[in-house]
């Protein structure tokens, strides 16, 4: 594929950003949920 | 703990010194940040957007429209005329057309990329004795996307010309 570096790079940046954002968010959630009771977790 | 109100000349211990300074900083911080953002925005708009508004002059506007004077460096937009493209080792020559007006363009080097005949380009440079001497060419792609058809592509020689001819 011509210009493969640019094309794969675009997909890598896109998917990589999404995955990193998701992982960081989940990690923060887990970290801060320890001291919070289930009654405060309105989604449960 | 004494929570009774105090006269203004007898401030609370906790509001003295560094804590009052911190409170003042907190109060002004949003204003400072918004001011910086505002200044940043004005710089972008005045320094970059102004020069960017109407990014180019069309070929038929050279020497006619304000800001398209032949004495200054210009960005000129037009279509590379079919059968006008000639490449040597160091130069690329072609005719650029817009609205039935044409100019000869000489570019130092090979534009590369998707540059080809019948494609719209923006050439950066100066008019020198009736020829536009360019040192930068940007291909201006249309908003049309068509599947590459090998047979049609080979028959025409230039994909953009085959697209222009339908």
């Amino acid at each position: 594929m011509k210009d493969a570096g640019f094309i794969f790079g675009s997909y890598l940046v896109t998917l990589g950003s999404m995955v990193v954002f998701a992982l960081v968010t989940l990690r923060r959630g887990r970290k801060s949920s320890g001291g919070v009771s289930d009654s405060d977790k309105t989604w449960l | 703990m004494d929570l009774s109100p105090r006269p203004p000349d007898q401030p609370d211990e906790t509001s003295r010194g560094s804590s009052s300074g911190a409170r003042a900083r907190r109060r002004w911080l949003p204003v400072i940040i918004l001011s910086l953002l505002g200044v940043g925005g004005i710089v972008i708009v005045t320094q970059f957007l102004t020069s960017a508004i109407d990014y180019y002059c069309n070929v038929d506007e050279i020497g006619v429209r304000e800001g398209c004077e032949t004495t200054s460096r210009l960005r000129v937009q037009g279509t590379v005329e079919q059968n006008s493209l000639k490449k040597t080792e160091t130069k690329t020559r072609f005719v650029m057309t817009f609205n039935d007006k044409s100019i000869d363009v000489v570019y130092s080097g090979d534009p590369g990329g998707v540059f080809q005949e019948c494609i719209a380009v923006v050439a950066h440079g100066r008019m020198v004795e009736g020829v536009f001497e360019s040192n930068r060419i940007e291909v201006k792609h249309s908003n049309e996307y068509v599947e590459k058809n090998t047979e049609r592509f080979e028959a025409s020689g230039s994909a953009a010309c085959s697209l222009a001819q339908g």
Partner: protein
Amino acid sequence: MSQLVTSTSATGTRATRVLGLLAILVMLWVVIGGLVFTPQDVVQGESVRIMYVHVPSAWIAYLAFILTAVASASWLIGKKHSMGFDRFAGASAEVGVMFMAITLVTGSLWGRLTWGEFWQWDPRLTTTAFLFVTYLGYLAVRRLEGSAEQRARRSAIIALLAVLEIPLVHFSVVIWRSLHQGATVLNPSGDVKLDDLMLFTLFSGVVGFTLVFFWLVLHRQRTMLLLDVVNRRGLDTAIANRRAEGSTN
């Protein structure tokens, strides 16, 4: 990414897991369709494949910022000033900034292949950069010290002002002469000049990115709620400790 769906997260529910799974499936098609099955463009060749991630990321960034403004207005107008609106606004803006960054990077790579330049200060690129910087500022203001209500009020006003930039960005290619091509799908004439499989993959990209957006926003706003609860508890404890100190003196 499947780990994200199956693992037990503090902010996850059955609904978010289903949403996450759907997002993964659609994104899988976008990647395979975009890189393998879709044809080359007659002029741009292979580089057209960047469109399937660049265009949806720009649209979802717009969506994110519009939802931020809607949630901010709801907070300002609502009698209860529900902090849920504020958290949604903040979460949506964070995810929007991520999508806007993706738009700028992928657009820059695509620009290098078509225009021959990574960046030019043309109207579309300049206004997009300005929009990105504005929302970075919005996120910075959200992190300033103050009560939750102060945070909500400040950021809601900024969000309502910042959203006005979106029409400027979108129509910059119509209002001014730009190096950036005009809109292919959301153009004023409504005439879409895109081959069928290209259009389908682009549409899949929009669906996939939308699913990812809502998945991220749901988790992020729940995380924000947890942090708000922790901070409030911390404040309550500090006040109680101070009162206890006061009563012993």
